[in-house]
């Protein structure tokens, strides 16, 4: 164990997701060795993001203003909302340029073994948005895994009875590739989720 500032830094770093004690040590010693200006820049970037960035008061996307760029854009369809787990998922969907509605960030997915239930997610805030925003349709774009599915089912059961249409994005084949190169599991899933034509 180290003492003083080095140990403080190691402890702070190991609180970050995906950083174990070993990696934290390596990062701490790396920072110790870097030029003063570089270390300052890192510290300032951290302060800056906390100072200037916040979460959108409506959809919990990251934002520099009270409402994020999507919630404050009048050209976006307010009646159509895409529900995602994390702000980074918004950027993935935006890159498609196919979605013209607004977003709602849950802040994760339901995972009881990690102590995450509906109360730990921004689900009640979504319900509260329904009426004032005149939401007619919700697309649940949580991750295609067990937790993402559970979250989608939970939301559908909650919101469906309120007269709002709820759908789930489908998981399928990568486009543009040859069928023969798709892995068996993805292809098997795509067969399961086939559409009538």
């Amino acid at each position: 164990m180290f003492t003083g500032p080095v140990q403080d830094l190691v402890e702070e770093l190991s609180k970050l997701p995906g950083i174990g004690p070993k990696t934290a040590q390596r990062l701490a010693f790396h920072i110790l060795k870097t030029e003063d200006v570089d270390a300052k820049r890192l510290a300032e970037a951290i302060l800056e993001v906390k100072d200037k960035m916040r979460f959108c008061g409506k959809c919990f996307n990251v934002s520099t203003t009270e409402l994020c760029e999507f919630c404050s854009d009048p050209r976006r369809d307010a009646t159509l909302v895409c529900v995602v787990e994390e702000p980074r998922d918004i950027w993935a969907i935006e890159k498609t340029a196919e979605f013209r509605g607004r977003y709602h960030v849950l802040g994760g997915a339901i995972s009881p073994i990690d102590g995450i239930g509906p109360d730990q997610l921004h689900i009640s805030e979504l319900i509260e948005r329904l009426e004032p925003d005149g939401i007619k349709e919700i697309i649940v774009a949580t991750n295609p895994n067990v937790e993402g599915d559970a979250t989608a089912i939970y939301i559908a059961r909650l919101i469906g009875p309120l007269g709002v249409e709820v759908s789930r994005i489908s998981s399928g084949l990568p486009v543009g590739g040859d069928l023969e190169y798709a892995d068996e599991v993805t292809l098997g899933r795509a067969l399961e989720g086939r559409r009538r034509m």
Partner: protein
Amino acid sequence: MEVVSVELTDFRNYEQQTIGFQPGLNLVVGLNGQGKTNLLEAIHALSVMGSHRAGQSAALVRHGQERALVRADGFSRSRPVHLDLEVKRSGGMRMLINKVPLERTRDAGTALATILFSPEDLALTKGGPEERRRFLDQIAVRLRPLAGQQRHEFERVLRQRNGVLKAAHSSATALATLDTWDEQLVRTGAAVVQARLDVLARLRPTAEKRHAEVAGSDRVPGFAYLAGWAPEIPDYESIPGLLEAAIKSSRSKDVERGVTTSGPHRDDLEIMLAGVEARTFASQGEQRSLALSLRLAERDLVAEARGEDPILLLDDVFSELDDTRREKLAELVFSSGQTVATATATAGIPLDAGRVIAVDGGRVTRDA
């Protein structure tokens, strides 16, 4: 398919050794502790990228060394295939098929497929239900890749549902998502059960036939799927409904105990011999014959699915069988593609046309 030669470097007690194999039967003989099982383990590792007896792959690396290598030349669908498997002491395996790195472990068997029957397989008859569930689940994956994903999802859902049940004691709102997990448990659980029933339906006639070939037909085996949540499963369509009803009716008990008390994770493959449960009533040799017929049936299913015989690896199988069964098995092995079998002595083993590979302290001393 067949393996023609295997080169071992620092694998278990082998320092450096090349071993040649012939089509048909290859018999590996040697005293206890000389490296017979190690050799089968090496061939098996080429097909599953893992070990049937070592929890950690580091155990495969010779003491004091950093990495083990298994290189093999063989034929798959009449085409030559070259395999390189590297096992690191620090953990992990890497395989190259014809010099191309394999991306996914589950694709390991695409080049060489092996069926291993080892003394540990006695657990199929004698052990707990989890051994038999795993047996069915593993065959399901061999026949249908998606089955592996479905079982993985089922296990994940089960863990999450148990997480809800455990939290219910300390949190009033924890049960809010129980319906959601029930729905997922039914969907994923039904897929797992259907896959197992599918496997069993194909396995049963073959296993019965194989058992008759080895053990004769006066004591007939029986194989039945036992689901605690349904006394009978009339057809696949009824699985979700039955499962849903059972999970609903055991909900209060589940909440009380903090765990999912009924479902596919508690099911069993019941093995009978002459009308009684083999686990409690059959003799050791009878239990081994039953386990062997299940593995042979697996061999037959894999052969049918791939359109070619997998390599049969038989570890120590002859020792507990009587002369008649031993002879029957030897006969059967001659008509099942390539086999590599181990024994402590050739005596008592009917061996007309087979190569004998004698091992002694991690070296091949005779090869004829």
